[in-house]
């Protein structure tokens, strides 16, 4: 038994040193050389300052910006504390949250889009994402917000639609996954447009 323990301990030390230190250290060196921006978190700079990551939603509340999906993190859009909301399919809390968000959307968008009905709101706009920092909204969600953005920014609807299209990440090979509009990149492009 002592001999068995001694061998196991040696194996544990060696495996930890190789798989747990040498491998990730060497790999990080490689990743930092080949894909430096991505390995560092796909950070986006504007005027020399980091404004966020293309892979993390951030809070947008002003009317001239596209708004991301709701977030279940604390505080919202916490990219250092991701979480699901974990509300079940019959949860009264989920029902209340969805109703509240839908009302807020109608109140926000109707001044720009008088025909907007409850049944027009795409589901991704009223439920939290898996990570709490989903960087995308569905194209339908972007379309719902477009009249507001166009009017607030004095841009044509067509121009805003063009920009949305440009910042839509499509399916892989046209088949896999779902299309999504990257909210942060789109909003930065809008700011650029208005400069």
């Amino acid at each position: 038994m002592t001999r068995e323990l001694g061998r196991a301990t040696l194996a544990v030390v060696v495996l930890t040193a190789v798989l747990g230190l040498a491998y990730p250290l060497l790999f990080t060196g490689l990743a930092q050389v080949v894909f430096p921006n991505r390995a560092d978190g796909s950070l986006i700079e504007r005027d020399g300052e980091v404004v966020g990551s293309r892979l993390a939603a951030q809070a947008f509340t002003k009317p001239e910006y596209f708004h991301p999906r709701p977030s279940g993190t604390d505080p919202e859009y916490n990219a250092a504390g991701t979480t699901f909301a974990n509300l079940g399919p019959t949860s009264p809390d989920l029902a209340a949250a969805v109703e509240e968000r839908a009302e807020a959307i109608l109140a926000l968008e109707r001044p720009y889009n008088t025909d907007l009905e409850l049944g027009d709101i795409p589901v991704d706009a009223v439920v939290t994402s898996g990570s709490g920092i989903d960087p995308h909204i569905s194209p339908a969600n972007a379309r719902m917000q477009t009249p507001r953005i166009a009017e607030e920014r004095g841009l044509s609807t067509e121009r805003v639609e063009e920009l949305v299209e440009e910042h839509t990440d499509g399916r892989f090979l046209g088949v896999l996954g779902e299309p999504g509009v990257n909210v942060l990149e789109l909003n930065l492009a809008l700011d650029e447009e208005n400069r």
Partner: protein
Amino acid sequence: MTGNGITQIALYAIVLTALAYPLGAYMARVYTGTLRLPRWLTAPERGFYRLVGTSPDAEQTWKGYAKTSLVFMGVFGVLLYLLFRLQGHLPFNPDGMTAVLPHISINTTASFVTNTNWQYYGGETTMSYLSQMAGLAVQNFVSAGVGLAVLAAVIRGFARRSAGTIGNFWVDLYRSVAYILLPLAFVLAVILVSQGVVQTFDGAATATTVEGGEQSIARGPAATQVAIKQLGTNGGGFYNSNSAVPFENPTPFSNFLELLSILLIPAAQVFMFGRMVNARRQALPIFGAMLAMFAIGIAVILPAEQHGSQVLRDSGVNITAGDGQSGGNMADKEVRHGIATTSNWAVATTNASNGSVNGGHDALTAAGGAVPIVNMFTGEVIFGGVGSGLYGMLFFVVLAVFVAGLMVGRTPEYLGKKIEAREIKIAAVGALFVPTMVLVLTAISVVTDHGLASIFNPGAHGFSEALYAYDSQSNNNGSAFAGYGALEFSSLLGSLALWLGRFAPLVAALALGGALAAKKTVPASAGTFRTDGATFAVLLVGVVVLTAGLMIFPALTLGPIVEALS
């Protein structure tokens, strides 16, 4: 259910099979020692054997094999616990994480040594980079390696005649890690970084957001860990929300690869089995049975998630697929993943003992959420865990052969070996111990105040959370209805489930291998029940579904079924 959704999942099954077949052939060569490698590549292997004082010729009995593997896991457990408790004083901790709480450390140690990766903690808010890479990621390699090693030994038991030994643990472990897991993980990690998975030793980044707020963005050496957590059926996320987090799974391409990785080795090991027992056709009914049960899961969850939850259907918002959205139950799901791949993932991760998620399971619909519960409850034999999936399925194979023997009135045989009382007893223990434990522990957790305190959602869904928790931990899955709280009582009860859930089937499988290795083979005759055709595949599905289905049904009626009817 949309046409595109079905196409995505069909494509997944096709690519999976196409990759698994050649990988299985390669793996068979690894474990039969027929792989020819250049000397410089095998030098570390010889060094490792010298270090642990063994050689490929020094084979072990099943008992010796079991003892060595258990001692090895025990020593690793001690190291892991110390690492979590002392991480505040150790290097690679740029975000200043302090010691992990004792009960969380105990549970997490059990969880990672047993290839489960149940997480009662959030990675980016709890663990230092050292704990992640030198503790958790190492276990992701090693626990998967132990599973593969044990499987190789068990298969030798089926293949050999009148033999007293079934292999050498250290040799099988080394080869699993160095020739299968590490090369695959390296390639996957490179692709993941190219898609945007982070890999850095810098601490969290701070951004000044467009509207002037401050946002902290957690980072770390994630790609290396994410790759092996997918390939090794581990599943423990670098981040709390696992592969739903863009830094862990940024694009549809990364998602497809991570999803393939969940079932890649578990599917390949079936073909490996056929080659190692010198009867390639024997792999086909097993593979077919697994694929059929995978498809059953998809057929339930995909329409359920697309149809949406009660709350969302009643809310009046638009949940119809098409016209710029994937629609359906998008609660706790990501836009880029949508309904189809998230459903595919939920099935694959619970077919296997992976447990990673790309969307929240607690928010699944009633029928959708029942699918992972049932998948896990089979003992994760639908492809299953790396190593453990197939040795778990071999219990059912023995039981199916026994049932067939009763039907035709002959002594049951499998691969020329007589299946007798001892083998059937071992297989029954291997197949039934864990599901029994699931029901007992769930019952304990819902009749005690300490247990009830962990439940998050009200009503029947709360019961499902508890059932899911002990189902997942006992079967070494690791996924969760994640609202279930990390309280002391639940952590410790869960730790018990984790250890026993790993050891009981593992030792039973080795005992089965040992018993079969000692037997002579008898030539097949006209009365031998054929185990290489479609009939056997149907029988195998029947045995798995009846065994697991009958045991779980009463519990399902208290959870998902009540919920679906409410």
